[in-house]
């Protein structure tokens, strides 16, 4: 650590005045970032991560103002600069990358011009020089054929390329500090890996400091040198990455780690979840803000506020009763002194029995779904088709959880929608029990719908905002004319109980609940008709880690109690691994590998599966920082005109001419029903068959 840090934030306090109240968004934040260092800022949504970034940039929302503390960049105080002086700092000395590259780019300007704009603003350059600078910067961020791309408009670029363009914009003036606010949250894991690599490379080459704001502990583990964990508008723990992961001292940090599904992926144990909700910041508690949710909290925690301190200056935390072990500093390294590991028994594994002897609950054979592309308003000529699902076959057994993973646009959600009857298959068969569901009319399908229900990703969008919870939960019963009024009311009360909500929830509207509570309501609605199978489309991807674990535990418990069968669709491989018995990996409408979860994870056969697994950030810095593999290069090709032969060949490291000519069939690998479709697999196919 150098003597003077590049950025020093001291006791920063930010408020947002609303109509009737004031949100104390930041309640005294302390941060330092050195040259050439990446500081990771983590925490749940609403903890003040983004507000910290925005306060440093002084780009606060309406009614927001910095009410105390200091922000100094290179020894210069930013909080009392005039607006004009601050404009000179933004983009020039501090660059910023936002979460959504599409809404942050101007759709009517070429990206070259947009990058050049900040050069023109901050440097005395001609337009021509600025454009040259833009192309250079695009090359720097690894944009393929940068000179041509500079003339493109944002809509002509893919998501990953847009994010590269955003980074180029932030870097055009060689800022000393780069603030990346959830830079990869909107991207697929494979692209996320590429973008994080770009940011890391550039940090080293340009000698910048980086503040990486994210909710993803895996991303932090791989990219950050030091970490600040935030909770309810305060930093609760800060130290270097290795120490934090090895010996977290604040109970909140510890709880965050324990809530990660990969912790229990192999054992299948119940995940730890943090009870309750973060405090309301319009009236922040004067005591420890985490105390109401903390399992170690004592009277002192509820009475006074712990300062951010520690045994060493390198590892500081705000807790009276820290977890982990006491430390001391040895030559700039933090060393744990005594190993007093606290062992938390998280309760028994949730055993779910798969009933293979009954034969498959669901059998999907050669399922195909093409979405026609039409032209013309009246005649609607068909000019092409998006091949969303191309010849997919799989089976799911009663009581099983079948996980479907893949990048966005691979057709996994379309399969879910086909199964529940929201889309009609172009060809192929879906047999549920002994009934054929594909190609049936809505009217004939209606009575069977109750057996397969859908759980949506966005619990807010999937609940009618004008209905009370009791009406929402009663609706499936009314639709299917189940029982009389009293029986329905009883069933609704029972459902609310089953998903762990209090009865008072019945009279409320969806917007009065938090994200996790709403997802419980969505789950309860899916359960209302006593379905045999539930298709869960990204049910936890909108939720924070601590809430996510609550919903996952609940899903597992109710599967055990009710004998449910799940089709679990997600892009998050660690969640899929935790929950699933078997996994199918999809790529561009094709099922490329399917097998038992452990086998697919430990012994993948398909190059795509391997790349996908490598791309997933692991919340363990020693694993993450030693990874050599690049994951998957490039981006998903268009499904309108998919590559011939093997669809993955355009991104595959082992592709040969055979791959373009012939489509590989799904062949068995090993004795445990592990199949993959690859001409040049990572291990040999089992002989015979």
């Amino acid at each position, binding site marked *: 650590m150098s003597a003077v840090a590049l950025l020093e934030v001291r006791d920063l306090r930010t408020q947002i005045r609303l109509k009737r109240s004031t949100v104390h968004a930041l309640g005294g934040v302390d941060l330092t970032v050195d040259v050439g260092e990446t500081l990771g800022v983590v925490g749940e949504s609403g903890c003040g991560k983004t507000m910290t970034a925005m306060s440093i940039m002084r780009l606060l929302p309406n009614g927001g103002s910095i009410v105390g503390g200091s922000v100094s960049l290179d020894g210069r105080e930013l909080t009392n600069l005039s607006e004009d002086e601050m404009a000179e700092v933004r983009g020039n000395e501090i660059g910023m990358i936002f979460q959504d590259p599409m809404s942050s780019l101007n759709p009517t300007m070429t990206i070259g011009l947009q990058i050049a704009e900040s050069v023109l603003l901050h440097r005395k350059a001609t337009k021509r020089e600025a454009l040259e600078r833009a192309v250079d910067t695009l090359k720097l961020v690894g944009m393929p054929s940068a000179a041509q791309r500079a003339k493109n408009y944002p809509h002509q670029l893919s998501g990953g390329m847009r994010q590269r363009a955003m980074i180029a914009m932030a870097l055009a003036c060689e800022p000393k500090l780069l603030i990346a606010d959830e830079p990869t949250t909107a991207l697929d894991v494979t692209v996320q890996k590429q973008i994080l690599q770009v940011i890391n490379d550039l940090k080293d080459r340009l000698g910048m400091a980086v503040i990486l704001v994210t909710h993803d502990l895996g991303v932090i583990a791989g990219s950050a040198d030091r970490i600040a964990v935030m909770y309810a508008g305060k930093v609760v723990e800060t130290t270097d990455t290795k120490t934090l992961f090895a010996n977290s001292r604040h109970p909140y940090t510890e709880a965050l780690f324990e809530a990660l599904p990969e912790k229990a992926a192999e054992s299948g144990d119940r995940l730890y979840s943090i009870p309750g909700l973060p405090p309301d910041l319009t009236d922040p508690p004067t005591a420890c803000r985490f105390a109401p949710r903390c399992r170690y909290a004592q009277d002192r925690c509820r009475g006074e506020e712990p300062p951010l301190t520690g045994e060493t200056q390198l590892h500081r935390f705000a807790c009276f009763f820290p977890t982990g072990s006491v430390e001391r500093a040895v030559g700039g390294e933090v060393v744990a002194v005594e190993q007093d590991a606290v062992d938390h028994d998280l309760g028994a594994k949730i055993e779910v029995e798969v009933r293979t002897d009954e034969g498959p609950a669901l059998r999907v054979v050669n399922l195909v779904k093409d979405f026609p592309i039409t032209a013309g308003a009246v005649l609607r000529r068909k000019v092409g088709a998006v091949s969303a699902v191309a010849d997919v076959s799989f089976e799911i057994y009663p009581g099983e959880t079948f996980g479907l993973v893949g990048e966005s646009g691979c057709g996994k959600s379309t399969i879910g929608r086909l199964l529940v009857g*929201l889309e009609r298959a172009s060809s192929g068969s879906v047999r549920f029990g002994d009934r054929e569901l594909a190609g049936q009319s809505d009217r004939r399908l209606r009575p069977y719908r*109750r057996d397969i229900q859908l759980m949506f990703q966005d619990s807010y969008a999937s609940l009618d905002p004008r209905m009370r919870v009791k009406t929402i939960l009663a609706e499936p019963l009314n639709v299917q004319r189940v029982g009389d009024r009293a029986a329905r009311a*009883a069933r609704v009360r029972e459902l609310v109980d089953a998903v762990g909500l209090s009865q008072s929830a019945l009279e409320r509207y969806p917007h009065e609940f938090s994200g996790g509570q709403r997802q419980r309501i969505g789950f309860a609605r899916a359960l209302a008709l006593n379905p045999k199978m539930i298709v869960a489309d990204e049910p936890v991807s909108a939720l924070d880690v601590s809430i996510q674990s609550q919903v996952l535990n609940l899903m597992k418990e109710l599967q055990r*109690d009710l004998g449910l069968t799940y089709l679990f669709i997600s892009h998050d491989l660690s969640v899929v691994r935790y929950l699933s018995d078997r996994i199918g990996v999809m790529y561009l409408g094709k099922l490329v590998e399917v097998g038992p979860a452990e086998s697919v994870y430990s012994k993948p056969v398909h190059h795509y599966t391997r790349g996908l697994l490598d791309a997933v950030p692991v919340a363990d810095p020693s694993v993450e920082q030693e990874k050599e593999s690049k994951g998957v290069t490039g981006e998903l090709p268009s499904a309108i005109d998919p590559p011939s032969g093997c669809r993955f060949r355009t991104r595959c490291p082992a592709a040969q001419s055979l791959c373009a000519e012939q489509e590989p069939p799904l062949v068995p690998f090993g004795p445990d029903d592990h199949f993959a479709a690859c001409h040049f697999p990572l291990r040999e196919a089992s002989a015979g068959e």
Partner: protein
Amino acid sequence: MSVVSSLGAQDPVPDLTPTPSAAGDVAGRQRSMARRMAEVFFENKLGVLGLGILVVLVLFCFLGPMFYHTDQIHTNIDSTTLTPGSPGYPLGTDQEGYDELGRLMVAGQSSLEVGIAAGLIASVVGTLYGAVSGYFGGWIDALLMRILDAAYSLPSIFVLLYLAATVGRSKFTLIMVIGLTLWLLLPRLVRGETLTLKTREYVQAVRVMGGGTNRIIYRHILPNAIGTIVVSVTFIIADAIFALSTLSFIGLGLESPQIDWGGMLNSGTSYVFDGYWWLVYPPGIAIILVIIAFNFIGDALRDAFETRLQKR
């Protein structure tokens, strides 16, 4: 109770979280949606003003004649164009000897009745038309929208004049004529709203549970579109009152002895250069007030519907 599944037979919730109540409790007082909307409405000062004006006008027109008796049937040539303040005539009399204040009340009844009835008819027709077009889509939508385009291409004042001149000028026919001219304003709005609402996930959720078209339209799409519709209805009512005033002003309004504010204005303007201001200002101000009132109410309702879903 065959419906009740095995859920109930078992332990209600096997400890979901260390403290299940913490996950289930919802902060804050429970308030009904209507109450919350009313709160937002009454925060809007202009909305309250608009509502106040409307209430006063309605009381004035419909209850006023019970306390202030005048003869609005027989002309009285002995006392024409008396100035305001003349004994027994606080607002004077008009050129035919009718008491101006009493006439303002009676005329207001017609204006409000025709305006509100015509506005409601236009709203119902327009809403259904737009909802059908948006929900069913495809060629039905294309056809309905082209018809609407064609109807739009006719100047509405011309249609209004033609219809009023041909089908007669009773209260009922004027309601129909104005209603069927103004309905054009709503379909596009409702269609757009329906198009977005029908792709919402909660509508898809109904389809997954096997719900039919009727349930989707009446239970989910219309209740969620009602805010947009109600707001437009207030504006259309203002338009309808204005349309009636226009018709009456050019002499194609209600037939005598019925009268509305536009008709009063019409007869008053003939004498405006003679200094008979009391024949012009009272009906003119009444028209302006009622139109402004409806517009203020519409604005406040828009706020109320928009914020109704926010936690406050």
